[in-house]
Structures are given as C-alpha cells and as structure tokens.
C-alpha cells in the first residue's frame, strides 16, 4: 500500500486514524520486497519482531498511550548497533551469527519511543569504507542508479530511507559515514555533537570519533529522530551531561542575520563542477534570505585526512582486538591459542579492516607513536583551534558534503586513497567533535543527488538545523528515485 514517506506525515496520519502502524510496516516491507534484490540495503529484516512491535504500537495508541512522534514509525538500524536477540554482524564474517544479549542505548530509546525496528542495514565491514562495498555479505547499491554505490559506511541505512523501505534509519559516523551516503542518496544525515548520543552498544570503530545519528528524508524528520535518541547516558563515560539544544523549535527561524562561512579549503581540485555549482547557488540563496556570507579559511583542514587515517585506524586496531574467536563469533581452530586467534582474525576480517588494523598497530608502535599518533593528535588540536577562531566570526559553516556524486560500483575499490578522499569534507567535524549534517540540494546532469554540508560548533545543533531547514526550503528537493523493478 502507499504510505506517507516522511516520519512527520506518517505520525500525523496515525493520529488522524487514516492508517495504522501495521499499515506503515506493510508499506515499507512492500517497498523492501520490490527493491531489496536491486539495492541490498538490509542484511536482515525482522519480519516477526517488527510485526509484534507494530501491533503493540497500535494497541498502545488505541489505549491512549501516545509515546510521541516515533510511535509506530518503521525505523532501520545500521548493523553495528547491538539489538537484543537479533543478529548483529557489523557486516563481518567474524561476527556471523552473533546475537547480542543486550540492546544499544539508542535501540532501547527507540523501543521506548514506540518505534518499530524493521531490520538491520548493510555497511562497510566495521564501518570502514565509503561505498558499502566492503561488506562481507555483498555490496549495497544506490536507489538513484543501481550501478552506483550508495556511499558508506551507512550505505544500507541511506539506501533504505531513499528507497522508502524505512521511514528513517540510524547510522554511525566516524569520518562521514552518515553524511556522505546521505548526500549520495538524496537524504538528510546528521552527525550530532560528540557525546550527545550514547555509544553504548555501538560496536566501536574509532571511539573518539564515532557518533550515532539519523538518516531521514527531511530535516524535520532528522530532528524528530535525533531528539528521540540523544541525551545523557550513565553507561557511556563520554556522554554529555549538560543541557541539550532544542532542535525542533529552531526549524522555522530562518537564516536572516546569521553569519555563514564558506570553507575555502573544501573546493577546487577534485570537486565535481555540478557539486560546486549547486553549492554556490545555494549559498547565494542563503544570502538572499538575509544570511551574511563570509569566505573563511581553515588551513588545518588540508591535513585533516592524514590525521584521521592515523587516529581512526589506531583506535580501531585496539577496538577490534577483542574479535579473537575466544568468546563469541567466528572461531577457526588452531594448535595453540595464539594460532587459533591468528587464524580466526585472518579469516574473519576483510581486506580493508585488515589494512586499517595494520596501519593502526604501526601508528601506535613504540618508536613511531610520536611521529604518527602523537602528531595526528596535534593536528586534531590544530583543527579545533582553527575552528574556534572561525566560529568567533561565523555562526555556521557550509561546504559540499562529498566532492563528487555517487560513483560507479567498483570504481574506487582498488584505490584506497581515492576512496579515502570521499570523506575529505566530512572528516574535520569528527576530529573536532562538532555537529554537521548533509541536506540534499539537487540533482546533477545524470540525475544523481548532491548534498550540502552544514557544520556548527559543539552543541550548535540549533543553528545547524536552522540553516539546514532553510537550505531544504530553498532547494525544494522532492525528487524520488525510480528503482527498476526486477521481474520475478
């Protein structure tokens, strides 16, 4: 059946009584049925669990127990979020068949809010990648062109939302893994301020950078989903315990009087013309709405990528050490414990994960620590200092989210450096711990979506959503992908 394709609209319809949570679930499952063979957005759809949850949501609502805007809304989860009783694999062989005994904090919060968990979406193994091609269970594809990648690593979540096989999804963003796939699939993706969304139950890639966030069709939906999952969590020592921004109420405030910086370093060589033109046009639009546009320079952004590719692998090398075949997941036997561990890891991890573990192990090694990891931490401090200087002059920053639109599947698989460049615009916010989001602003000549990134200082989600909502209004982006239906 045809259902509303935003959370806000579905939420209204539920309360008007024009449809039920069960209808919404039927709607997204029908879309999944039609599109999964082409897209492979999901690793696992929880038909039974979702059905039970949808019926419970309907009963609850009928009983007058309204749990808020996510009540009865079908949501997809990136498969690096622990779900009690539901297989969680990180798209890795090493976790094949692993069923967590507990829910991630975000998952319990969604359940509390009455959301219906549809299933687990595909990702680059352990969230390491920018195309969702590094999945041990096969790649996902872009709904706008099924010969292209959906971006990554939260490509499955982005593809599911773009295709309508979920009304919203959660992803995780370590260097752009929410924003870049959102840009490549014409969806909205938010990486909130570090520490505002609990990481408890998120299978760690790089702990100091990882942050969970929403992927939705609209800015308003992103605000609804974000407000449902964030907030202090005593189970996460890095969780922010102060007052949280009020994002929903800032959506209609407009940009009149705001000073918006355009980042000089995030343009030029390597950026597609259509992307640069679309961003420039949007900047002009913002100016017309009363924003003061300032070109700003952040020289440290030039070295952010190399710092990121030391810090993230270093943390990953330690975070992924626990996958050794001893307690859970894959075990490949050996003559000794050491041999068993080595074989398990050798067989269980894919090539990109192995590459990053090696890189990270090296970066932390005695004798190299200071030159690599230590230096990367100094770059990180320089980025923060650079941003602090710029945020003294502007309220928010804008840039392309990705230098290019969705690229053809396989195009960058043999060239890790080209793949790493996909995240050049998004990485600085992770290193700084600041919030950033991507909003679709149009299609290129091939009909592929282009995203604009809005960045703000830490806990600056109010101003970030204010700008994002204006960008969305100006773009008037209402295109939907046409996914070829495969017969049979």
């Amino acid at each position, binding site marked *: 059946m045809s259902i509303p394709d935003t959370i806000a609209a579905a939420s209204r319809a539920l309360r008007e009584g024009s449809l039920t949570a069960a209808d919404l679930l039927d709607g997204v499952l029908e879309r999944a049925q039609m599109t999964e063979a082409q897209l492979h957005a999901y690793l696992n759809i929880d038909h039974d669990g979702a059905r039970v949850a949808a019926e419970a949501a309907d009963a609850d609502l009928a009983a007058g127990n309204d749990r808020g805007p996510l009540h009865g809304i079908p949501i997809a989860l990136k498969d690096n979020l622990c779900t009690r009783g539901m297989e969680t694999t990180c798209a890795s062989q090493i976790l094949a068949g692993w069923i967590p005994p507990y829910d991630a904090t975000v998952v319990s919060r969604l359940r509390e809010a009455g959301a219906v968990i549809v299933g687990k979406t595909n990702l680059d193994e352990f969230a390491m990648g920018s195309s969702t091609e590094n999945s041990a269970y096969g790649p996902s594809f872009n709904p706008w062109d099924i010969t292209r990648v959906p971006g990554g690593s939260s490509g499955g979540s982005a593809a599911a939302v773009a295709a309508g096989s979920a009304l919203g999804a959660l992803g995780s963003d370590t260097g752009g893994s929410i924003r870049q796939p959102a840009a490549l699939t014409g969806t909205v993706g938010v990486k909130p301020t570090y520490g505002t969304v609990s990481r408890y139950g998120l299978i760690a890639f790089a702990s100091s950078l990882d942050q969970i966030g929403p992927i939705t069709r609209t800015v308003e939906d992103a605000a609804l989903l974000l407000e449902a999952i964030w907030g202090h969590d005593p189970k996460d020592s*890095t969780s922010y315990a102060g007052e949280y921004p009020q994002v929903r109420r800032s959506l209609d405030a407009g940009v009149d009087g705001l000073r918006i910086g355009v980042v000089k370093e995030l343009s030029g060589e390597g950026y597609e013309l259509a992307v640069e033109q679309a961003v420039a046009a949007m900047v002009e639009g913002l100016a017309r709405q009363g924003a003061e546009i300032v070109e700003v320079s952040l020289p440290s952004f030039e070295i952010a990528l190399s710092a990121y590719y030391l810090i993230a692998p270093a943390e990953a090398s330690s975070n992924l050490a626990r*996958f050794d075949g001893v307690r859970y997941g894959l075990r490949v036997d050996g003559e000794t414990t*050491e041999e068993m561990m080595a074989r398990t890891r050798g067989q269980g991890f894919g090539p990109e994960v192995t590459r990053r573990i090696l890189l990270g192990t090296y970066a932390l090694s005695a004798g190299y620590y200071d030159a690599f990891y230590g230096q990367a931490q100094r770059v990180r401090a320089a980025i923060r200092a650079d941003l602090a200087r710029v945020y003294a002059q502007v309220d928010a920053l804008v840039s392309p989210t990705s230098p290019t639109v969705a690229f053809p599947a396989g195009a960058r698989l043999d060239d890790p450096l080209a793949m790493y460049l996909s995240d050049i615009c998004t990485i600085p916010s992770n290193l700084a711990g600041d919030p950033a989001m991507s909003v679709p602003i149009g299609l290129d000549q091939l009909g592929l979506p282009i995203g604009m990134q809005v960045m703000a200082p830490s806990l600056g989600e109010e101003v970030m959503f204010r700008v994002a909502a204006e960008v969305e209004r100006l773009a008037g982006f209402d295109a939907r992908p046409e996914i070829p239906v495969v017969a049979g």
Partner: protein
Amino acid sequence: MSWEAVIGIETHVELSTRSKMFCGCAVDFGAEPNTNICPVCLGLPGALPVPNRKAIEGIVAIGLALNCEITERSVFHRKNYFYADLPKNYQVSQFDVPVCRDGYLEIELDGETRRIGIERAHMEEDTGKSTHVGDGGRIHSASETLLDFNRSGVPLVEIVSRPDIRSAAEARAYAQELRAIVAELGVSDARLEEGSIRFDANISIRPAGSDTLGTKVEIKNMNSFRSLERAVDYEIRRQIAAVEAGQQIVQETRHWNEEAGETQSMRTKEGSSDYRYFADPDLVPLVVPPSWVEEIRASLPELPEARRKRYATLGLHPKAAAMLSSSARTIRHLFDETVAAGAPALAAFNWLTGEVTAWMRRTDTEPAELTGERLAALIALVDEGVVSATAAKEVLEGVLAGEGEPRQVAEARDLVQVSDRGALEGAVRRVLDADPDAVERLRSGEEKVIGFLVGQVMRETGGKADPRLVNELIREAVGSDG
C-alpha cells in the same frame, strides 16, 4: 669484589570493592565460574566502561598512606596485548599520568629506619583466570583451557617502588609494611595466599658503591613473605655467582620455585613487549579534585608510621615502638586498651609482645578472652605484690584459657602470694633457726646469703610468699639493715 643488590618491588593490590572497576558486577571470588559477568567485563562488542567511584577512593587512600602526590587529572590508557583471559585483548590501565606519584614508605629494620621511594601507584583492571585441563595442567600440553571471567575487571592498584631496596630482608620488610598499610586502610583483603596482594621483584646487582644499574631480572610467584625473602636472597646470590664466573645476566622473568628453593627461567620469549599504550578514548580523564582528596585523607585510619610516633610519646623506646607497630592488629588493639585502663605502657608492651604473642604463636588462636582491662588488672596484681612475676604468667594462661578475671584465676589456681606478715613470720623463724651459721654470716655483712635465705623461705611456703616481704622480715629478724 663486593656487590650491592638493587631491588624494586611491584605490588598488585586487588581492591575489595563491592562491584568491579568498570561495571556493576559483584566482586566475589567464591562464586561459581562466570556468574559475575556482564557485557562490559566480558568485553562484548559495543560495551563501554564506567569507572567505580569506590575504587578511586581506594587508590587515593593508598596513595595518601604512601605519602604520594595525588594527580588531579589522571588518564586511563589501554595496554594492548593478546591473551585469552583478557577479554578485550587490552587492559585498561594507566601509563604516563597515574593517580599517585612520588611517595615513600618507611621501613624499620634492625632498629634503623629506611625510606623506600614509591614511584607511582596506578589504577587498572584485573584479567580473567585460565585453567588448563588435561595432561598435568601445563599450558603447552593442555587439551583445553577453561576461562572464568569473574575476576575480569576487578579493580587493581599497582604500586611501583623505586629501586631503593638493597637486601632480601629489606624487600621483606617493605612488603610486610605495605601489606600492613593496605590492610589497615581496609581497601583490600590483602591476602598473599589468595593473591589479593601480589609482589614481583626486579633485581640487579652492581659493584658496591657504583651508580650504574645492572641488567634486571623480574621474579614472580612469591606467595608468602618468607618465599619473597628467600627468592630475593637466592636471586642476588645467583647473579653474583654468575657475574663472578664471567657470565652475562640475561634480562628475563624468573619464576620462584618454592620446593626447589630457586628461581627458574620461565623460558618464555621475552618478545619486545610493545603494549602500544594510548589514552583510552572510552574514558574521560579521571578527575580527583583536592576537596575529594581531603575528604579521603580525613577518613584514613592511623597508619603504621604515625602509630610508631604515638607509641614513642607514650614512653616506649623507638625500637619497641616499631616492634609494637608491626605487631598483629590484636596486639596493638590490646595495647591501646591496656594503656587506657591505666597500665604503664612499658609493662603493657612487655606482656603483649612477650607472653601474649608467644601464646598466640603457640596456640595459633586469637586471645579472645583477654581484654585491656584484664591485662591492666594483671599488671596491677604484680605491682601490688599480690602475685609474683612468675605466677603472673600462669595467671595469664588461665585468663587466656577462659578462666575469668586475673584475680579469680590467681585465687582459683592458688597463686596469690602470701603477703601477710603474721603468716610468713613462722616460716622465717623456722628457716633462721635451722641454719644459725647462715644467720651469723649475714650479720657479719655477707650479703649474698640473703638470697639463699629468701629462697629457703620461698620453698617453705611453696613459692607463694612475696619475696620482697620475706627479704624484709629476714633482715628485721637478723637485725641487718642491708
């Protein structure tokens, strides 16, 4: 050539907090295997650590007791290495910014006070426990390894001394003093046999008077103070013999074999242990503000060093003060009670470190029947001449055996001295009459005869006479004024 040993000791203290270092699981060593576990201490994917406030209080208390500086913002690091009983394959520990730094511990040895530097004390988590089954329990021949994660994540404090220790006896004194402090603080069970306090020693030798450091060898597996002392002593002699025979000392870890009475090479590859330490991104810096430190300082019990000073002000010789301070808690407690009940400190000290301690060793029981009041009463009985010093020991035995108050025991056991002049005069008369020769010699100034005569009266009275009174009566009778 004469050699000097350079010894540093690393001590691991398991804190006896109710819950583990980074999760809510109970700390309970008696429990069935793998019953006190959760996603955090099992290192399940996605789980995150949250520090235990009680454990932080424990390490700060230890740091203060060891005269350390307490770091206001210390940092948790990950120590990365692969081991089956280490669930995350890294241990949360501290590296360059530990909670406690630059302290010292004073030890008393042969009446001398020596100050041993404490380099640092840091917070970390314990590992799980492996048991190898099949073929004798040795890891290389085991067919299976069983893992118990109940201990995984138990808070552990590692205390690192400076290499200021020079002999096996000092090593033992250091370990004993440290254990006494930790026990006094009540932050750990501090039982060597159960491994809740563990000592490793780093030992090297150098020519006496030299400033250089020799190659150090680490000794593990010392489960008692005695084996610690023996192991260190053995290792020093082994190294001296090796060097004098022209051999090189190999940097390695050696295992103390109690039966063989020697340290043995563990023959493990001493792989360049690169733990790839880095600040744990799952934990924020540990903040211990000065106000918290002061709160903990105010709650500290009296520590051995302060105690020694207090005993000295009660009039005990410094050596006696040190000896008492390192005595069992029961003895110290009884001492304070006895002095509070009015007994002189020296008498209380002599009784407690002498007879009472000997009785405890002999019977291997606590002196449950002895109270400070009772001991003070016994001391008063001796003082007043009611019982003799010899008989008093027997009275004490009776008290310890649960026969009641000292006076009751003395009476029941018929140990009260005859201090009644009338009762003694007859015995004195009989003794003097029986030996006129002795009386004559005493009269003519031969003083040593008095002792013989007192002894005769004591025998006459079955040892119950008050010898001072007997002495007095003999002199009166003979007309000698001594």
